[in-house]
């Protein structure tokens, strides 16, 4: 017999035969402030969640439903929802149907079962994902959708909780999360082991340890197994009962009153003390991991039966009968009626429209634009006061690092919702001084020194963005983003897509990177691959090559984040931070005078930079490649070759139209790419020119597929001024 059917029949038989389990030392509802109405309502939500699981399997068997990872055995979640407020943002994992169904009871006018059935059926009317994915989520219920199976949503939950304290410190009271909100993040006992989850526990504890507000409930739904691998007995408790910074609470999720008591205690503690809680809720996983999983293949029968005996519905029924709130016959009747109602709803839901075009699927890759508060356009006097002694330097040419630091200061002055966060960005001013003086100018609430964990930094940004901030996290070196790339790829970039554009996490991630540092650092400080960002739909990738552009582009990136809710990666070429000269020492050609906000020509997304109008050759490049190509261009000119040098500036997305226009009537095209050739931008550019300008001859020069060595060997694998000159001549020969 189908496992779901077996559990269903056992429930009905237990009711019919009066064989319900005792509730042990589970509390009397009245003693814990749980009214008859509230307890019964939780129980009804649990029954609904269960019937929905059964229905999801039936729909899948008919080819009408597309998701069978159920919530059966985890219905204690309904009690957790009852213990929280609808304004407490909840980042839920995938066995949380009962939570969402029951939270909807707090907000009249919703249609939670209909909505969930639309998502089972992948209808474009599914109000959270628009039919793109089966997710637990709801905009009005403050449940951002998660697709994570590996607890990768925990770092952003930490960020969202952290943002509540920051908002209070800054006196910002118009944000999505109220000042007394608590954030909930749920996950299973298996994913609690994931390094991402561990990082989040560590970050929350690290913050709490030093008194930073962190009103957060980590809800570990411990069903004792992850797919087929059992969690060692007692492992979760052993790990978390004494964990630094976390307050541990245990409850039995199979009894709704016990679950409510634990969840209430956790929520109250987090709200009152603004410290993180680890709520360890015992659950059972009924009928396997998902519809396709036959747990009899790897679990002993006795164990499966023992789990089935702990079915939360049995204890819920026992409670109802014990209190005289529902009879066994009434429970059976209600359960059947819920099933029949859901079945009728499902027949209607499967007829609702589906997404039928690729454009429909992709419509929410980029979030919608939004109306934002105008910047406060600081007066010159305010700027002067902020800049202090720097004010007198502003008419002097400066290198990129200084210009960027001033641009950041101006942006933070104009937009109070911008926060900067990263390792050493505070009083030290960052490794390269780009965040210099920001801490002194804007304080520790807006210039946040983080712990050494890139997942935490990006999670902080994502979570803060959920609460209305525009974070500008800094990753110290490009090579360090790789340990945390999923926070961009799997989380930040997907949020709009999976929420049909209703949720967004606008941010500008600044990353110092790329090669050519003179003999410093080796690979990890000179990493030269941007491939990790190039295939992420919707992501904006900016790489400035000089200080003037960097300022204009950074302002455009912030505009894109604020007004268009985009996730932006801004890669700053380290080797060009302090570069002042182009052709010879002292020429100062790579410096510029700082343009105040509103001054100078803006650089919009997709705008390319063009130097020269030579028609013999167009060199298409970016970053350090642009700098070297400008050197090469002078040498080529001396040899009678007239070249133009095109700076892509924006690598994701490349505006091909503008690029082709920029190439114009140049006869040949040389692509110069400082990144490793495999996966580099040059690959795409070669394809672009093959498609768009097949009559022109084109070639490329890129870095070798190697890691960067130390010392004088550091640039041997990279394009150089001279190799560019040679490649150009070869192309023209």
């Amino acid at each position, binding site marked *: 017999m189908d496992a779901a059917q077996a559990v269903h029949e056992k429930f009905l038989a237990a009711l019919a035969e009066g064989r319900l389990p005792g509730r042990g030392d589970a509390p009397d509802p009245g003693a814990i402030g749980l009214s008859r*109405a509230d307890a019964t309502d939780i129980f009804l939500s649990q029954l609904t969640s269960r019937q929905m699981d059964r229905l999801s399997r039936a729909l899948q068997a008919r080819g009408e439903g597309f998701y069978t990872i159920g919530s059966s055995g985890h219905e204690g979640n309904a009690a957790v929802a009852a213990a929280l407020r609808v304004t407490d943002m909840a980042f839920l994992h995938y066995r949380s149907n009962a939570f969402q169904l029951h939270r909807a009871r707090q907000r*009249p*006018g919703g*249609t939670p079962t209909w909505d969930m059935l639309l998502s089972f059926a992948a209808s474009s009317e599914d109000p959270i994902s628009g039919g793109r994915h089966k997710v637990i989520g709801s905009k009005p219920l403050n449940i951002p959708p998660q697709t994570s199976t590996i607890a990768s949503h925990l770092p952003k939950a930490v960020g969202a909780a952290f943002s509540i304290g920051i908002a209070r410190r800054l006196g910002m009271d118009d944000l999505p999360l109220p000042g007394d909100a608590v954030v909930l993040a749920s996950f299973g006992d298996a994913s609690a082991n994931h390094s991402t989850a561990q990082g989040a526990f560590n970050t929350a504890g690290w913050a709490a340890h030093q008194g930073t507000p962190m009103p957060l409930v980590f809800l570990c739904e411990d069903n004792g197994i992850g797919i087929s691998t059992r969690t060692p007995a007692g492992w979760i408790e052993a790990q978390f009962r004494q964990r630094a910074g976390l307050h541990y609470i245990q409850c039995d999720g199979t009894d709704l009153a016990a679950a409510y008591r634990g969840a209430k205690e956790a929520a109250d503690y987090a709200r009152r003390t603004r410290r993180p809680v680890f709520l360890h809720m015992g659950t059972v996983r009924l009928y396997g991991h998902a519809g396709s999983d036959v747990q009899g293949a790897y679990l002993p029968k006795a164990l499966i039966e023992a789990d089935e005996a702990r079915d939360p519905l049995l204890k819920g029924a026992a409670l109802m009968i014990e209190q005289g709130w529902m009879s066994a016959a009434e429970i059976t009747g209600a359960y059947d009626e819920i099933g029949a109602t859901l079945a*009728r*709803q499902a027949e209607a839901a499967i007829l609702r429209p589906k997404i039928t075009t690729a454009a429909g699927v992709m419509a929410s890759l980029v979030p919608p634009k939004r109306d934002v508060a105008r910047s406060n356009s600081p007066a010159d006097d305010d700027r002067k006061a902020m800049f202090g002694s720097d004010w007198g330097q502003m008419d002097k040419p400066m290198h990129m690092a200084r210009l960027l630091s001033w641009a950041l200061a101006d942006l933070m002055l104009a937009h109070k919702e911008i926060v900067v966060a990263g390792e050493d960005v505070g009083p030290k001013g960052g490794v390269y001084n780009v965040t210099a003086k920001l801490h002194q100018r804007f304080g520790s609430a807006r210039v946040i020194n983080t712990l050494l964990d890139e997942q935490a930094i990006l999670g902080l940004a994502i979570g803060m963005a959920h609460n209305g901030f525009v974070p500008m996290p800094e990753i110290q070196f490009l090579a360090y983003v790789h340990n945390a790339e999923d926070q961009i790829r799997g989380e930040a970039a997907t949020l709009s897509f999976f929420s049909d554009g209703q949720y967004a996490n606008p941010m500008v991630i600044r990353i110092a990177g790329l090669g050519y540092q003179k003999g410093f650092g080796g690979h990890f400080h000179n990493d030269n691959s941007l491939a990790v960002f190039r295939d992420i739909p919707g992501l904006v990738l900016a790489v400035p090559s000089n200080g003037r552009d960097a300022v204009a582009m950074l302002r455009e990136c912030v505009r894109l984040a604020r007004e268009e809710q985009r996730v932006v990666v801004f890669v700053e070429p380290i080797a060009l931070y302090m570069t002042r000269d182009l052709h010879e020492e002292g020429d100062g050609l790579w410096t510029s005078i700082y343009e105040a906000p509103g001054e100078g020509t803006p650089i919009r997304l997709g705008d390319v930079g063009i130097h020269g109008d030579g028609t013999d050759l167009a060199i298409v490049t970016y970053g350090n490649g642009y700098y070297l190509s400008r050197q090469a261009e002078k040498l080529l000119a001396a040899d009678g070759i007239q070249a133009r040098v095109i700076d892509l500036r924006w690598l994701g997305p490349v505006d091909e139209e503008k690029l082709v226009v920029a190439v114009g009537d140049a006869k040949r095209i040389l692509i110069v790419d400082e990144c490793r050739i495999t996966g580099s931008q040059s690959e795409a550019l070669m394809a672009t020119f093959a498609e768009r300008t097949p009559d022109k001859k084109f070639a490329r020069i890129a870095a070798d597929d190697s890691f960067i060595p130390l010392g004088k060997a550091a640039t041997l694998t990279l394009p150089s001024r001279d190799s560019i000159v040679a490649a150009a001549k070869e192309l023209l020969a």
Partner: protein
Amino acid sequence: MSGRKTAIVVAPGRGTYGKSELGSIARLHGQRFADAIAGFDAERRDRGQPTVTELDGADRFSVATHMRGDVAAPLIYTATALDYLSIDREAYDIAATLGNSMGWYSALALGGAVSIADGFRIANAMGLNSQTHGPGGQILMQVVDDDWRPVPGLRDTLLDMVAAIDARADHALALSIDLAGMLVLAGNEEGLAALLAEAPPTPGRDPLRLAGHGPFHTPLMAGSSQKAKAELPPSLFARPALPMVDGRGHIWRRFSSDPLQMWDYSFGHQILAPYDFALSVQVAVKEFAPQAIILPGPGDTLGGAIAQALIGIEWQGMKSKADFMARQASDPILLSMGRTEQRALVTGDK
């Protein structure tokens, strides 16, 4: 599975017992429900009010008399409740009840949250009590075109205007009832006058001031709310026998609904805040997926609003009045008991 259809029942509100309904209570229910009617009459007589039988049996329909709250409400309640009791329960399983405005009191009785007799007491008391308010009333404005599709921007324009007028000194104006294709706006005389003077042209007939109606579902009804809570005790309420969908779209579930909370909602929020009838219909069809929507009498005028609410969510593919009419002609989803042929489908009477 039984061959019964699942239905939801929508109780109509004020303005539904008109000239053509005069005498309908006696005609439709006089014999079968003589006892119930006698009970209602006794309640009225005890209070020194003309009886339902007398009012229904009047020689002619009088707007001045029959449209007044203390007369209209008990007539409407009686027609609704007795129609409900006439539904062929061998043919229909009732999944949920809901109502429009005063119809909420009927829905409470149909859903079993109060007895049929107490439902009459409530409707009767509220009919009188709802006249407890300062100067003001309701205006009906249409926001859909002839095919029952929204006129782009009109609803938002009106609601923005309502908020702006309400913000003026001495003006009170608010949304009272959302009827999908129509908005009922309520306020004091200053607010209503400003609305009539400033509102853009709306489709259909001119904005209509509803005779005998107060500024229902606005804070101007605070006196009515206090009076209701004082004279209608929570003990009238019990857990419902059926789910009920209220004017916020909230579902009062069987077993878990707290009588005290239902009482508090019915005589508090329900009286003082907008009644979103359109949403209540939409929630009911989505969450109960009925095969039929039964509209008990009196009359059938609420049918348009129900249809417009369905069209608003493209329920079962209906996107316009034409779609709805076609559906009604082939396999009616809305069964109005005020229409003879549809009534027969509901009651099973030949």
